[in-house]
């Protein structure tokens, strides 16, 4: 017997009121709920109408993009010519003019690596080995000396190359040191623990600038007569020592987040300290602290700008020097906005990446 089919007469579908859906609904819900919000929205709209058009006129309509400095002084708008006329000095500084394709190639390689590694599904051992090789290749492209590339001393690396050099090598050297310090701080051996705690707290208590001063004026005194270290390397050492203390604190957080049971289980299996850390604890701990580690990378990237104060030619310093040229004096807003944009793009990319990782790792 077939089941009887009961048909229900279709009732008339009642649509939500037009003021509750679509654009109107969204505007009502998000901009004009209540008296206070309406007032706030109107105030902000008024402010936007008052300020945004003049800014757009300054930046795009009245602006000059490739003029000489004389024309700029008479123009009402922004003088982007300060950037376009000096772009190669701002970006690459004293790197030999006819060799500047090399930093471009190195940066392109770096960007390629970053875009490839951006997707977490591609993370594997091969990639982990490819990264140091890639960084070494970038170093060779920049330094030259082989493959008939003329040699370029690191002292001539400036502009964005120096910024990236300080940030990337600073972090890659600081990371293992920071992990060691974190393990030292969690150690049961009192002397090791005390040494780590003193180091971490001492470094975290002082500004980076004092470390840079130490590297630039004190380090030469620490070395025996006749041995001198290049200025960039000294700043690099200061950045590494400084960043390591911050990484140590982040990793310590990760170590503390691993339940005691994991440690005890590893010990019950008869693993030695190194096996326990390498196979059980660190893989879990380091994974949980990836997002804060990216934040440290971001601040290390921004902090490289402090080397301006000890006279190294990073991206900020090349901008600064461009502005001390009498022709381009007084156009600091335009030049700094351009440099800010470069830093912003780098940092914004990294912080978005870290935020995405955070949501992925939580699940």
């Amino acid at each position, binding site marked *: 017997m077939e089941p009887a089919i009961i048909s229900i007469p279709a009732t008339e579908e009642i649509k939500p009121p037009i003021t509750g859906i679509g654009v109107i609904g969204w505007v009502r819900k998000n901009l004009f709920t209540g008296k206070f919000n309406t007032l706030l929205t109107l105030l902000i709209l008024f402010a936007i109408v008052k300020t945004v058009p003049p800014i757009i006129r300054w930046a795009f309509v009245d602006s000059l993009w490739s003029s000489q400095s004389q024309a700029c002084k008479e123009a009402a708008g922004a003088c982007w010519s300060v950037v376009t006329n000096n772009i190669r000095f701002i970006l690459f500084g004293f790197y030999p003019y006819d060799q500047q394709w090399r930093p471009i190639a190195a940066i392109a390689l770096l960007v390629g690596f970053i875009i490839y590694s951006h997707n977490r599904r591609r993370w594997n051992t091969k990639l982990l080995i490819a990264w140091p090789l890639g960084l070494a290749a970038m170093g060779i492209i920049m330094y030259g000396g082989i493959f008939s590339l003329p040699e370029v001393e690191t002292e001539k690396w400036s502009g964005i190359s120096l910024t990236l050099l300080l940030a990337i090598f600073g972090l890659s050297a600081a990371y293992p040191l920071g992990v060691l310090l974190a393990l030292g701080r969690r150690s049961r051996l009192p002397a090791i623990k005390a040494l780590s705690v003193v180091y971490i707290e001492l470094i975290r208590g002082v500004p980076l600038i004092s470390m840079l001063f130490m590297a630039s004026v004190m380090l030469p005194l620490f070395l025996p007569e006749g041995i001198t270290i290049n200025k960039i390397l000294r700043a690099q050492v200061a950045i590494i020592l400084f960043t390591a203390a911050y990484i140590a604190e982040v990793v310590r957080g990760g170590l503390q987040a691993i339940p005691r049971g994991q440690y005890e289980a590893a010990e019950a299996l008869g693993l030695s300290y190194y096996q326990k850390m390498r196979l059980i604890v660190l893989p879990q701990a380091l994974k949980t602290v990836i997002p804060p580690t990216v934040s440290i990378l971001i601040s290390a990237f921004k902090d490289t700008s402090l080397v301006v104060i000890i006279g190294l030619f990073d991206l900020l310093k090349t901008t600064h020097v461009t502005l001390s040229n009498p022709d381009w004096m007084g156009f600091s807003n335009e030049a*700094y906005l351009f440099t800010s944009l470069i*830093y912003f793009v780098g940092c914004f990319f990294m912080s978005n990446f870290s935020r995405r990782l955070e949501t992925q790792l939580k699940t």
Partner: protein
Amino acid sequence: MNQANKTANVTNNIPFWHDPAKRGIVFQAAALLLVLMIGYYIFSNTQANLRRQSIATGYGFFGKEAGFEIGEPMISYSAADTYAKALLVGVLNTLKVSFAGILLTTLIGLFVGIARLSKNWLVSKLAQGYIEVLQNVPVLLQLFFWYGLFHNALPLPRNSISPLPGVFINNRGFYLPIPEAHPVYKWMLLALLAAFIISYLLKRWSKARQDLTGQTFPLFSSFLSLSIGMPLLVWLASGAPTGMDVPHLRGFNFIGGLSFSPEFGALLIGLVLYTSAFVAEIVRAGIQAVSHGQTEAAASIGLRPKLVLTLVILPQALRVIIPPLTNQMLNLTKNSSLAIAIGYPDFVAVANTTINQTGQAIEGVALIMIVYLIISLVTSAFMNWYNKRTALVER
């Protein structure tokens, strides 16, 4: 052979490198030895280098004449004063900008953080833009930007902008009128202090009474009326002096009133905007960390919305906010050392001049580190004390 004997034998046969306790001692001794050796190596090299370059050691230079001027000192200072006094002026300048910076940062950060959570889409997006832009540009670059802006965009003293009568802005600085010196202001300050003490006693009394009887007392409004009313009464009682010290143009510059240099302004604005973006994120995360169930539970036991906020949400949010907030305050203080790059005479700038003049780099850098360590330790001690007071008391 019985069991105990066997174990004893086994323990005795373990070579020392398989015994964790003994191995630990060896490791620690090795680490200490290494640190001592490096320390000795550096020390002996330094000694040799200092002798060779005949650089003086020790803090003997403290008592010598500094011979350089410092802009906007907070205590009277001239080039004829000693290095010790010059360094003190530097410390005071650092503390001044840090203190003002911390106050403003907390206020702006709180405001932007709450705005970020606003239901108004425009407000929330504006706050987000503020946070993203300011967080992702190096603070030193921001300082340069503001400094350049003040120098390029502001007029000469002759054509000063005057947004309010008595207030002048030009490329030499910011000038505000202040009340003329008068003995009554000292008494008003004392009255304010007395109002604070009375408010504190009132708070203790009202808490005791509430615990006993359940009656509440309008603490906040009484605090406000006391701390405004008492100084006002003193001011009225002494005949309400209204004399103002208004800045005025003399020669090429303004004199009188309260003034800030463009260097101070750029440093303060740069530090405050940069740090407040981080504080805003902390405030947002802190408020979001309090689960919505707390709000509902508080409402269901009959608390009014204002009390829900002050008695339930804020105390819990503060617990999450305070530790990272402390870090940001310390960051601001440490970042104030960037003053040297734009020429504000903070402690690092003065110490750097001292190093250049005396050649005593070790003492100079050590001084910088010690001063910042002390500031950091005192700030974190205070914040830890405050944190302990607001911390969760668990059974």
